[in-house]
């Protein structure tokens, strides 16, 4: 039956044609690879960097996510920026000619702009030619940053700092969306001349300038905002080192060099960095690369394959990549030999502190200091880092992460280290010898992932050794926040990333008036700590301030409103052809300072 239709000849033909079709599809050459080769031949320097998540908005005032900031920092400029190489992190002028100049009253500063800096050419401007940045643009930017109808997410960074700014914001709330900035002023912000703005602060405050280096405070032009309206979020018009040549939120974004960019390369290099060639380009105009290509690759496998193939110049290194490609020996991190031939690796401490919080209002853990101390003695942060994070972190002795002034690098302080005997002793003191009579303690986690559960298991086992039973509650991020903010918890995993690189940003986490709904989710209240915080808050960094930090650290250790855990170490890989690479945690994408050696062939 049906034999005639399926003759051997027809069958052979069918299988042959299928094979040929599949083979011809498969043998199509990678055109991207070829075009890459062409660009190298033309001596065009194209830096390839992958975005791991799509940005939300390129309107500086409407974003507060790192994916958006990575792009905004490259197409816009701010009044101040962080020095690329200096550690601890240090503010330096960006659009400003010099650092702000303090006036006689001690509260007012004059900010003078560099002359001749222009926005990129854009139809928003008269004749399509970019206009010069002036004091009017700075004032417009400050007003837009303070406008509640525009900026909801990041205003808290400057709240209370500038005279009259909070009142301006309150007024914009009353007026709604149709605010005419020409009819509404910020009392403390005045135009002095075409290039100078005077800003009066509410008090002498060394923290007040950090917001001026934040991507949300990038200088924007009223003409562009008015022209593009809602679409301003995907049509940036800035003065940055690059402009957007091709916009694609979820595809490949292309940045091209702004030929009129003003900055000259002159970072503060250490002697070691100078010897390592970081100043080879000193005195030259940045950026050094012609284009930056930014494909969006959300999965780590294809991202790493592209890096290994030489199609990506710089990539972050997750735990699994590290386990496969690197190792730690005598406290030093190395790339395995087969990878070290082609790639380089960097390590840089992050600007975050991870800890466990106690709810000081909880009837059990909040009211029993000895119990909290017992838990602190029972835990071993170093072992946890080694086993659960491949050693990629540093235990914290104070609340301030290592790269920030006022950290344990500046104040010598010893925090708890694991001591089982002391933990047992404290448990007796707490009224629960050997854990007898102690009900299980619940810890809240803000994720439900496998790795979170593994972390919990580790901690649970450590506490079990002294007789403490720990239960884990794993939930979504917003559920976690709701639970913590309602004060309905005993213990929670927690962390804080620096809004700005200053110790104050971390010590505020235990300041009494900041208790829930503020950032002090421990609801910790201690009169001495609060007084020390208030005194130290507006002091410049130095021995006097560090003495206060030291005493605050003693109180944190004694009262244990939280248990300090660790400071993450960021790891990354880059191709050997990349020059000037140093991870700056306040500048996630320093493309303008990076250079490429064109004759260094692809890695793979």
């Amino acid at each position, binding site marked *: 039956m*049906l034999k005639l239709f399926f003759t051997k000849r027809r*069958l052979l033909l069918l299988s042959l044609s299928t094979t040929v079709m599949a083979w011809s599809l498969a043998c199509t050459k990678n055109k991207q690879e070829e075009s890459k080769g062409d660009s190298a031949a033309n001596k065009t320097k194209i830096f390839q960097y992958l975005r791991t998540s799509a940005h939300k908005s390129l309107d500086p005032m409407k974003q507060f996510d790192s994916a958006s900031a990575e792009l905004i920092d490259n197409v816009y400029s701010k009044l101040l920026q962080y020095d690329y190489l200096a550690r601890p992190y240090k503010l330096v002028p960006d659009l400003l000619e010099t650092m702000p100049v303090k006036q006689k009253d001690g509260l007012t500063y004059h900010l003078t702009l560099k002359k001749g800096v222009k926005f990129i050419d854009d139809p928003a401007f008269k004749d399509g030619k970019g206009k010069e940045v002036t004091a009017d643009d700075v004032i417009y930017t400050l007003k837009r940053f303070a406008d509640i109808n525009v900026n909801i997410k990041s205003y808290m960074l400057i709240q209370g700092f500038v005279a009259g700014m909070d009142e301006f914001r309150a007024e914009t709330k009353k007026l709604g969306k149709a605010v005419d900035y020409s009819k509404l002023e910020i009392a403390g912000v005045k135009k002095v001349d075409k290039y100078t703005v005077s800003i009066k602060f509410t008090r002498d405050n060394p923290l007040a300038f950090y917001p001026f280096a934040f991507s949300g405070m990038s200088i924007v032009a009223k003409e562009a905002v008015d022209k593009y309206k809602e679409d301003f979020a995907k049509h940036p018009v800035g003065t940055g080192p690059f402009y957007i040549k091709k916009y694609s939120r979820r595809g490949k974004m292309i940045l091209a060099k702004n030929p009129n960019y003003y900055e000259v390369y002159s970072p503060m290099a250490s002697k070691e960095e100078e010897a390592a060639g970081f100043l080879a380009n000193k005195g030259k105009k940045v950026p050094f690369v012609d284009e930056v290509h930014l494909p969006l*690759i959300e999965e780590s496998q294809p991202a790493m394959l592209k890096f290994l193939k030489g199609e990506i110049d710089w990539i972050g290194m997750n735990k699994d990549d590290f386990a496969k490609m690197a190792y730690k020996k005598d406290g030093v991190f190395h790339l395995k030999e087969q990878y070290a031939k082609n790639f380089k690796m960097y390590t840089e401490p992050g600007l975050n502190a991870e800890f466990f919080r106690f709810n000081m209002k909880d009837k059990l853990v909040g009211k029993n200091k000895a119990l909290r101390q017992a838990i602190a003695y029972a835990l071993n942060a170093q072992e946890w880092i080694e086993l659960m994070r491949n050693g990629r972190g540093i235990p914290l002795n104070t609340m301030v992460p290592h790269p920030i002034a006022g950290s344990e690098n500046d104040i010598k302080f010893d925090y708890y280290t694991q001591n089982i005997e002391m933990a047992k002793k404290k448990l007796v003191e707490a009224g629960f010898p050997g854990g007898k009579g102690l009900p299980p303690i619940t810890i809240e986690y803000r994720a439900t992932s496998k790795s979170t559960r593994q972390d919990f298991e580790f901690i649970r086992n450590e506490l079990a050794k002294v007789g403490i039973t720990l239960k884990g509650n794993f939930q979504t991020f917003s559920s976690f926040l709701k639970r913590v903010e309602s004060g309905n918890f005993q213990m929670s995993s927690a962390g804080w990333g620096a809004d700005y690189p200053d110790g104050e940003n971390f010590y505020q986490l235990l300041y009494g008036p900041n208790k829930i*709904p503020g950032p002090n989710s421990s609801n910790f209240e201690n009169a001495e700590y609060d007084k020390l915080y208030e005194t130290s808050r507006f002091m410049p960094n130095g021995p006097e301030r560090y003495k206060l930090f030291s005493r605050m650290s003693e109180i944190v250790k004694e009262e244990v409103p939280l248990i300090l855990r660790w400071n993450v170490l960021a790891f990354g890989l880059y191709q050997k052809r990349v020059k000037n690479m140093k991870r700056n945690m306040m500048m996630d994408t320093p493309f303008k300072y990076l250079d490429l050696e064109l004759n260094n062939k692809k890695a793979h």
Partner: protein
Amino acid sequence: MLTYIIRRITYMVPILIGVAALVFVLFSSVGEDPVRVALGTHATPEAIAELRHQWGLDQPLYMQFLDFLRQIATFDYGRSYNTGENLMDMFKQGALISLSLTLIPYLIGVFLNVSVAILIAYYRGSWFDRYSTFIFVASMSISYMVYIIGFQYILAFKFNWFPINGYEEGLAGMNYLLLPWIISIVVSAGPNIRMFRTVFLDETKADYVRTAFAKGASENSVLFKHILKNAMIPILTYTVIVIPFLILGSFLMERFFSIPGIGDTMITAINNGDFPVIKAMTMLIAIFYIVFNLITDILYAYVDPRVKLS
């Protein structure tokens, strides 16, 4: 038939209201709070209240639901919480990209799978049938993710036959789509061929086939005029109903191959609590699903004259 179509379209209204209610209740009660996700841990109470107000989330739930129904009726779903993009623009753009990823392998797959299924059905019981059954059952047992990771690693990374991932508009984008297409075809082969083979086997045993041969009909005629046509109803149901999901793309494929289609957008929206995106996509897909269901029913009548649409 017109009456039937009008009746079916009328049925759409309560179905869509039901879907809307389900989506609304699900994401209002158990989904992530979009305001908290957007503002993160450093949010002030003032910022939380203001954003809730700007997004209309401080309105009573019934008002929010009525507004949702208005959006469905007017096809004006507003803008994404996260990106501020117009949702209909986002859908149009993403749907075309997702279709470019899914449509070609779907068409090739249907053609290849039906052809191979006929072939296997013809040689039923032979070594060819047994080996192919083994191969296709084995291929069905392997996870979709393994195909993606394996093909990407071997064909793109090791052999350098394809780009590892990426996307470009227009014909240049073909280069990036070839590997995902091949994976889709390979993945769909196992379940589809197994199912189509069963359908064809059922038909070849039918009385009308024996009668047709008894009347002296040729093998080609029996195959294409009788068996293929009769097997078309289950095949149509299976293949046409999949079409709305082609627009949704393939989340895994889009993610691993960096193809900016709807699938990945939808998953990102769910993770971020971007309710407007979820609402718009779910409702549009529901509408497509109902429409294609109707088309399937109409096609039945053409394929099989015994089916009456009354």
